[in-house]
């Protein structure tokens, strides 16, 4: 039950080695072992999206992946997003548009939003809503989040 294994991984560009209980999930590892508390835990059963992080370029639910499964992989959390480029544009748009209230869903929501943009998602409100439909937000009612993502893509398209 408390078997321990060693893992090597790269988190936000930093490589490190850790001994982790095999039952520990990735988000608990990031939060409790690495102190990267920007990723949040809302349900621990893969529904709310608060724990969404990027693993080898794809969005992953940090509560549904074990830390040992991240052995050899590259993880990017909210702390590792660069202030320039699309991530920065999304953060700025979220700020302007007040696309967050309590901010608990925000790191996961940004990860999903970034994934949509990176995949060449269109400035289409319904498609944006569809894409973020796996991220729960209790505070905003989503409209301001859709507005911010739309704005970033529309601005890119206009260039």
């Amino acid at each position, binding site marked *: 039950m408390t078997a321990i294994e060693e893992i090597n991984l790269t988190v936000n560009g930093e490589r490190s080695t850790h001994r982790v209980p095999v039952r520990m999930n990735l988000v608990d590892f990031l939060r409790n072992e690495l102190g990267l508390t920007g990723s949040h835990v809302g*349900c621990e059963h893969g529904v709310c999206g608060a724990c969404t992080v990027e693993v080898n370029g794809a969005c992953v639910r940090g509560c549904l992946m074990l830390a040992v499964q991240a052995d050899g992989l590259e993880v990017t959390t909210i702390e590792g997003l660069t202030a320039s480029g699309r991530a920065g544009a999304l953060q700025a748009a979220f700020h302007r548009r007040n696309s967050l209230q309590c901010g*608990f869903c925000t790191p996961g929501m940004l990860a999903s939003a970034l994934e949509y943009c990176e995949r060449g998602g269109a400035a289409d409100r319904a498609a944006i809503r569809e894409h973020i439909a796996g991220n729960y937000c209790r505070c905003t009612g989503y409209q301001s989040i859709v507005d911010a993502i739309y704005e970033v893509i529309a601005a890119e398209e206009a260039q």
Partner: protein
Amino acid sequence: MTGPLSIFDRPNAYIGKSVPRPDAARLLVGRGQFVDDQQLPRMVHAAFVRSPHAHARIVSIDGAQAATMQGVVAVYDGSDMADHCEPWVGTLTHMQGLRSPPQYPLALDVVRWQGEPVAMVVATSRALAEDACGLIDVDYELLPEACNVEAALDRDAAVIHPEFGNNLAWERIVDSGDVDAAFARNDVTIVERTFRFNRHTGVTLEPRSSVVDFNPADETMTYWYAGQAPHMMQAILSKHLGLAEENIRLIANDVGGSFGIKIHTYGDDIATAVAARILARPVKFIADRNESFLTDIHARDHRIHGRMAVARDGEIAALEIDDLTGIGPYSMYPRTSAIECNQVLNLTGAPYAIQNYRARGQVVFQNKNLMSQYRAVGHPVAMAVAEGLLEDAALAIGLGSVDIRKRNLIRDDAYPVTSAAGMKFDDLSHCRTLDKLLDIMGHDVLREEHAKLRSSGIHRGIGIASIVEVTNPSPLFYGVGGASIAAQDGATVRLDAAGAIHVSASITEQGQGTNTIIAQIAADMFGVEIDRVKVTTGDTAHVPYGGGTWASRGAGIGGEAVLQAATALRGQVLEVAGTILQCAPDRLDILSGSIVDVKTAAQRMTLRELGRIVYFRGNELPPDVKPELIATRHYRVTDFPFVFTNGAMAAEVELDPETGFVKLLGFWVVEDCGRVINPQLVDEQIRGGVVQGIGGAFYEECIYSSNGQLLNASMADYLVPMAAEMPDIVVAHVETPTKTSVLGAKGAGEAGTGGAPAALLNAVNDALRAFDTSISEMPMTPERLLKALGVV
């Protein structure tokens, strides 16, 4: 107010502007400080064994094996906790007749709902604490349950607290005018309907969270708190743990949503504080999602029978309601679980001029999780009942939905008005908000469109609701009943040596933008740019004493305290500036961080210079000038028990009669919350509130089996509004500032949740009309709609 040019028209004004929230920047880069982010040296973790039964006697608890597990620091049961904690009772003296037995952190000998905490393990990690919980053996003897609200008062119902004789917790009757005579009039048409509002819950994305540390050397407790009312919690911990109030410090940094859920007293949180005290080290308890569903307070749970008599011209001759509401086995502490029902009695029909009103409320115990105040306490129920009956009445007498409202709404020039239920209203604008609503939604065009579509088999509906919202409560809400809950709030504003100002305020932030509006008001009233205002909230060691943020009171009450304090500081600074500059203070002003000539706006000195002189070179000042550039002001509402807001909402839906699915096509809100301090923040409060209302109306339900088992205690099974199904929501305003304060702000946090279900109910029933059927139960699930349609 100061003369014809209002203080809100000064240059560099921030009040009324959509200033982005300074603290959002931090949350956007993963720099939030939520309770679970706390990592303290020597910190240990709590997990709880919870009752699997709705009602059972605890025969024995065997924690011996768990206690010997490596990593386990302590195992406690109910009596261990009771030795260190006085029980609490969820009653208030002004809720006359309300009864509820003493409650302990962990169950003592009987468990009364599934999920009630029974034993606690503290270990070096949460995972180990949960492992140890699995080793604790609890032997139960099952007792008969009383779960169904409608059967809880039956003669043969199991009695949950034998000492009370039956399951009635509270009863209230309102009887105003001559209801019987009005119903007996021969010119009235009577409509009636039984409504059901099933249980739902808050589902804050951040679960309930506590980290508590205790230092035995100086008997001080520090509690990192994910809640709304730090000073209330300080008083509760003091009273029940027997610690001096001043030795308890509550710190609320970022709070991941609360909506009323986190304002109550939960046994597991109190047990965490007790354990920290016994162990003299930090203890963390973070509820998991299953625990949240089982123990975060649930909301609503009403069965209401309503009757309305209308005259031929549409006049509401009388309204009568009978509300039965289930609150679980205890009344929640310290706000009680009777307020929800009380609000329903106070508010049903409140937008309308109704002379004859009778209401009975019965609040009953049942073997389910506790029910208590959640966002828009009682409002969605009260609004949906009145609006639903009004729609029935309009149909029965052949009047339009809009016409019957216009016939009965309290006129905008009629205030002050006291309602049949005794509520005092002032500065409301029902008629203007309804007109504006009809305008922005294009009401008449939509109706025509729907009529055409109906003939081609597309079933759309429009629902309208006029609503009131209780905001800015006075001490008559809780304090009068003996609760240590402040209705006043305070703010301290001080000038530092660099010319910036620091505000500490007793209202709290859970994402509404409290800290932002505090900065806006202070910057505006004092005269600096907003980035020169630093705000502190949430920490009892650093803020004035006050109530916190709940009942839509932050902006209206806390905001006024900030306004008064910043204005006072401005006076102090101008006084000193006058001395330094050798001129009368009233010839000076503060603008953008400088002392200026009031007429020409020419700069006389910067605040930095003034700060330098006052703090460092006091020798340049006459001896009678005191270096005091700090002001504290407190504010409470005195003239009214509450400051009500009003609004009008409309929903447009499309019903698929074959599947029972409803698509939300549009939602419109016109809200009058008095002076709007930050339009974007207010609009987002309203949108978020509407979506929570949509949740209660269509998706969210705590589904219990007949023996009190919660069947959908996970986010996979309990449906919440997600982005794909939600409509864009159009928000507009009418601004009627309240006369009770200079700021003129009323609350805006709950209107959306309070009003949306009423509009949605009417919209769905409008779509159902073609099928000659209707629905009166929420959530309006596809299954219930198919039943109403006779399909299943």
